């Protein structure tokens, strides 16, 4: 009998949260092949551990956390610098504005970039981000503010 994760089958989980996990991996690694490794490892870990989840939010948070840890482990193992130029395939953007902001986000430091990603893309609240990253909410707030400033300075405009 196939295991259920918060009432969802494994296939449903992969389809529902693949973009989230892939985004987290890409934000951290900025490299498609490496991000793919961490992406696959995250779901393999889900299969291997088969943890029980209270709800879908719990499942999503668990996946994000595991993906971040996988990226940390990957960086720790490989110890190499990652840059935007290493991207073999650039993601597609809907318009120039979106492309510019995403490009500017990639220029931000990884830890700030991660918080910006979780806040603006995954729509997590500060408290939830603090729970996922095991950090103080005030720290997240400060980092969020600084990340915005970095992004503005890179993008060269006022924030909205």
């Amino acid at each position, binding site marked *: 009998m196939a295991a259920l994760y918060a009432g969802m089958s*494994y*296939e449903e989980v*992969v*389809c529902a949260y*693949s*973009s*989230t996990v*892939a*985004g987290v991996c*890409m*934000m951290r690694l900025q490299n*498609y092949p490496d991000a*793919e490794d961490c*992406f*696959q490892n995250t*779901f*393999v870990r889900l*299969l*291997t551990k088969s943890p029980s989840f209270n709800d879908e939010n719990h499942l999503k948070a668990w996946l994000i956390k595991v993906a971040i840890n996988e990226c940390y482990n990957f960086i720790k193992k490989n110890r190499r610098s990652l840059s935007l130029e290493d991207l073999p*395939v650039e*993601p*597609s*953007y*809907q318009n120039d*504005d*979106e492309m510019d*902001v*995403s490009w*500017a*986000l990639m220029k931000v430091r990884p830890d700030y970039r991660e918080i*910006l*990603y979780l806040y*603006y*893309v*995954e729509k997590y609240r500060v408290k939830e981000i603090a729970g996922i990253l095991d950090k103080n909410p005030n720290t997240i707030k400060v980092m969020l503010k600084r990340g*915005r400033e970095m*992004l*503005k300075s890179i*993008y*060269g*405009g*006022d*924030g*909205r």
Partner: protein
Amino acid sequence: MRKVNFNALKNVAVPESWVEKALHAKPKKKPIFLRLYFIGTAASVAVVTAVVLTLLIRSGGNSPISPKTDLFIQPSTVAVMENNETTMDNSATQEKAETTSSETVPFTQAVSSAAAETATSTETDPSETGIPHPTQGTQTTNPIPSNPTAVATDPVVTTAPQPSQPVEEPAEAETTAPTPQKPPLRITDVENLVPSVEFDDLEGDYDGNLSLFFYQYLDGSESIYCHIICNGTECGELYSDDEKMIVADSERGIATYCPLSHGISISYGSRIDVIFYNESGKAFRFRDILVVPDLVF
């Protein structure tokens, strides 16, 4: 200045191949050496091995039963045991012979064959010597004289057929078993003469008694002997009957010994050493006594 729309940030597009790979992923199995039960088993085995080795090393020099030689049965002991068994058999046969003389022959034949097998007292015939001697056959291994009546009057021994060739086993027993010896004397020198030992009736040659108040020195429950060394010459044989003293007064603890009655003549002016000893070898030596009339000490 350009406005930054943070909400314009979009998620990363996921390649289809990633999703397909993830859908076909299989859970990884831990290597066997990382599985908990394997680690637990290995740790248990290691701990048990370490404990056992530690205990073995600690108790290496102090084994519960040390192979001391005293624990082993000595050959002489075995011979004595066999001898006792044979003696008991013989005595039992003797009782039968006394009760029913008509059954003597079959009994003696049966027992004599058994005696021949054990090869104990069949080699020596007590009837030839007249008295049982403790140095005959394997009885020599017995420090305690065995029952003399069982040997001397044993019809089994007299009627037992002599083996044409003596078996080698008794010969080995004779050679391996040490001959019984009286214990060597553990002499304690008495430096000063004490009035409890006295000569009396000294006239001319000494023919009086040597008296010993043995309660001060020796136990009167055992035989007490007197050994005299006259002018450096030993006058008798240790533990012989000639040296055995007579307990004259057991209540007062007096034992006497008359040398002349045993062929030992001591003239006045001689210097003698007197050794009083008992069966266990406990001895007291009175040194360099000048024999004079009315010698009392």
